[in-house]
Every structure is written in structure tokens, then in C-alpha cells.
């Protein structure tokens, strides 16, 4: 890994961070789609754990957003 970095003058772990960020970004989009999916589902059948399921989906999204920003800024 150090040899590659020395030859191409790049920090290989920054490249690794880039791919991690891509993965987290894709996950972020997926978690947002789940938020929309839960909203759609609770509109079809409402009154059964509607608020709880919506809250859980938003928590997932916000947590994945937090992880993405954390890796972006502090990694």
C-alpha cells in the first residue's frame, strides 16, 4: 500500500475514504427512499403504528446522515 502511494504520490487511505463516502452516500439515499416508502405505506393503511414507523425511518435517515458527515469531516 505504501509502495503504491509512493509511486503515484497519493495517500491510498484518502482513496479508501472516498470509496467509503460513496458507500455511505448510497446508503443515505436508500434510507431516504425508505422514509418515503414508509410514508406511502402508512398512507395506504393508517392508524397502525403510523407515528412509530415514521419516527424509526427518520431516525435511520438522520443517523446515516450523521455518520456520513462524521466520516466526511473527521476521518
Amino acid at each position, binding site marked *: *500500500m505504501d509502495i503504491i502511494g509512493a509511486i503515484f504520490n497519493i495517500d491510498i*487511505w484518502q482513496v*479508501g475514504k472516498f470509496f*467509503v463516502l460513496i*458507500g*455511505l452516500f448510497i*446508503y443515505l439515499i*436508500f*434510507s431516504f*427512499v*425508505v422514509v418515503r*416508502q*414508509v410514508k*406511502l*405505506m402508512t*398512507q*395506504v*393503511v*393508517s*392508524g*397502525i*403504528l403510523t407515528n412509530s*414507523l415514521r419516527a*424509526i*425511518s427518520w431516525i*435511520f435517515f438522520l*443517523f*446515516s446522515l450523521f*455518520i456520513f458527515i462524521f*466520516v466526511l469531516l473527521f*476521518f
Partner: protein
Amino acid sequence: MTELYTSEDERKAAPAKKEQKREFIPRHKGSSLSSLLVLPRKNIHFETQEPEEEILLILRKHWLTNIPWFLLGLTLFFAPLVLTFFPLLDSFPPRFQFIFVVFWYLVLLMFVYEQFLSWFFNLSIITDERIIDVDFINLTSKKISDAELDKIQDVTFTNNGVFGTIFNYGDVIVQTAAEMPEFVFEAVPQPASVANILQRLRTEEKIEALEGRIR
């Protein structure tokens, strides 16, 4: 000549459908997470529900059908412990190892949540007027089919397999004269009772039609 249009005045003049007490339907049973919810609370609605339409049964697949993905999720939850015996990520810096584990659990949690949502919202609803089948095929697709009770032609049920027999769950197959010729309620609890309720509701609907109490 058959009336194709009924004015609002004529509808108001028609006798309102009385709230019926049906002896063949047990009292309220089940909670939000049940596979069989009988006479659910009045605040539970579905998208195409009519104002006077009453939900009698909400059916989902038996909770036992969730065991495979639950066990898979449980196994994957403990999978990172393998790293303590097989240092697969030791060539990566500690911060990368941490992020890989975090990402693993994020993906796992989403898998479990998706499986739960798929079980929870793929349901069948039986009202006093029709049967409705709600299918969420994937993240972006839904399919909702319904048929009026008087269009039901035949109701069949099955209890297949060891677990189906022991835990009393199976398929209820409803043949209809509607646009959707067959509804299959898969792996629902107490299929015999559900089939019996559908048959009694169909009979009740035919009697109401004869008595002229159609809404």
C-alpha cells in the same frame, strides 16, 4: 330499466345500513403487531375506505414466517465477532475497521427493518363490503386489489406442512367474479375461521341485496 345513476337525494332517502352485530365474528382480538386483527379500532383506515365501511378483519402472514429472516439477522448481528478470532481487517487502520463495522450494522438494521415493513404492510383487509389485498412488491411498487363480497364465488383454505398444521396457519383462496379472479391470503392464521367468515359475509351480502338494503 336499471338505474345507472342515483342522485344524492335518492341515496339519502334509502334506508341507512344498520350497524350489524355478527355472531360469526369473534369479539375484538389482536394488537397492532398481530397477524390476525379482528374488529380493529375505529381509527384504523385504509386508503380507499368508504365513510360507512367497517373493517372486520386485518390479516397478515403468520408471525412464524418471519423466523428465517429474523434468524439470519441475528446471525449477521454476531458476525463481526468473527473478527476477534480471524483478523480479516487488521491490514486496515483502526478508523477504517470501525467504519466497516458501523456500515455493516447500518446495512443489517436496514435489512431487518425492510423485512419487517414487508411483513407488516403486506396485508389483506376484509370489510363489511369487500375484500382488499394490499401488496408492496418492492421499495417503489404497490398493488391494491379489491372485490365486493357479493362477487365472491368460492372460498377454499389449506393447511400445509408441519408448522402450518401445528400453528394453524395456511392459505385462503378466494375465487371472484371481479376483475381480479383470485385472491390468495397467504399463510394467514386460522384459515378455516377466515374462510367461514368470508362465506357468511357473502351470504349476508346476498340477503341484503334481496332485501334492498344496498348502500
